[in-house]
């Protein structure tokens, strides 16, 4: 598995994954948006605003998935010192922050007509906001060093500490009363008999797969960029030092 820690071998494979992910993302997102915006029925309570959920929930899932994947990469970087893992953190953090921001903003847009307020200091909202700041910290730390390798390592440690802290934050924050509804899809058994109707579940899952493909395509692009810019950095150093 670590054979692909070599950037060259990784790039030979990732090129094809990128093409596949980009095509799948286009297909799933366009089909998912059609289902979500046109084909699915309005909710009996929330009416048309329920359609915001088809963007909001996949963005929320991805915001946590990306942080978890960064934590795994951070572990790989600190234990095995594979540079590519550091590149991954650098590439994934801004995308993760963007999905977290999308989740927060779409949630606010949904909250205004449904709850009657843009923002409440509710457990779920607050812990997502904290997640957003953890992303910002990782990005800032990545760029704060003259030596990019050091930035990657420092950022990896922050992501690790943050991943220990995140469940603590989540549960400590949840001590307050919660306005946000509990998760409707919590396990596989719930997918077979879920808390929401199939007409709404299908577009949601299609959108989620589309978001995941979009993320994969974007992160591969950014990783390629990281590898290239590191190569330029090394070449420049070589010309300076003769």
């Amino acid at each position, binding site marked *: 598995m670590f054979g692909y820690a070599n950037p060259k071998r990784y790039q030979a494979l990732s090129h094809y994954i990128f093409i596949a992910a980009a095509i799948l993302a286009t297909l799933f997102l366009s089909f998912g948006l059609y289902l979500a915006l046109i084909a699915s029925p309005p909710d009996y309570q929330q009416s048309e605003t329920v359609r915001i959920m088809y963007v909001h929930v996949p963005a929320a899932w991805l915001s946590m998935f990306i942080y978890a994947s960064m934590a795994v990469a951070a572990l790989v970087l600190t234990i095995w010192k594979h540079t590519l893992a550091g590149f991954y953190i650098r590439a994934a953090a801004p995308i993760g922050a963007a999905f977290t921001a999308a989740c927060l903003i779409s949630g606010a847009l949904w909250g205004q007509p449904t709850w009657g307020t843009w923002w409440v200091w509710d457990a779920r909202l607050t812990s997502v906001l*904290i997640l957003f*700041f*953890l992303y*910002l*910290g990782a990005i*800032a*730390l990545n760029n*704060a*060093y*003259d030596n990019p390798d*050091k930035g990657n*390592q*420092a950022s990896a*440690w*922050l992501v690790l*500490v*943050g991943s220990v*802290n995140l469940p*603590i*934050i989540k549960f*400590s*924050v949840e*001590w307050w009363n919660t306005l946000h509804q509990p998760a409707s899809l919590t396990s596989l058994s719930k997918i077979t008999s879920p808390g929401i109707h199939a007409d709404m579940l299908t577009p949601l899952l299609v959108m989620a797969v589309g978001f995941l493909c979009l993320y994969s395509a974007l992160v591969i692009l950014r990783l390629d960029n990281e590898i290239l810019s590191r190569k330029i950095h090394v070449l420049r150093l070589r010309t300076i030092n003769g």
Partner: protein
Amino acid sequence: MTPFNAILFKDLKSDFRHGGQFLFLPAFFLLIVMLYPLSLGANLKVLQTAAPGLLMIAALLASLLPLEKLYTDDMKDGTMDLLMLSPQPVSFYTGGKILAHWIIAGLPLVIMSPLMALMMGLSINWPDVLLIFIPATLLFVLIGQIAAALSLGARRGSVLLALLVIPLYIPVLIFGAGALDLLQTENPAKGPMLFLWAGLAFTLPVTPLVTTKLLKMQMD
């Protein structure tokens, strides 16, 4: 003298001889607490309901101040190079640093805390206040150590440090303020207090090791 003690006494001495943060930080703590009645009004009812959170925020801000200088001086004057080259485990150094840091920046806040609680109109027994502020300030110190070591070689270190450390301080703030609030309303506060001490039990052994690792990375 063991390396642990050597570092501990070196840090304490240099603090006592150079003006003393251990005197300045409680003054800062008191100043922030003084701002609350001035901004919220002197109504004791309002102050009482907000006091648990406000006290923890004041302690949090006072704990932020000394973090930036924690390792930069040792890095600039070469102390850290010598320590890294010495045959002793670096964890002795970070362990000594942590204890010295708490005696300078945490203990004064702990001693001040019952007085501050009294001034904010909280009717809580002083041993309970101490039992909350001892683990809370220790956790502020320990988490702050990791963040200080993380941002040591970074550009714009001080702003970055606040951005990194405040999200990590949140659980301490919530459990500390929660415990104070429960005690103020005459409820048993064992739950959040045990969470604080459990957090301390986890963080205390891990922090010297993580900080050591980070310092070694910074010195590469």
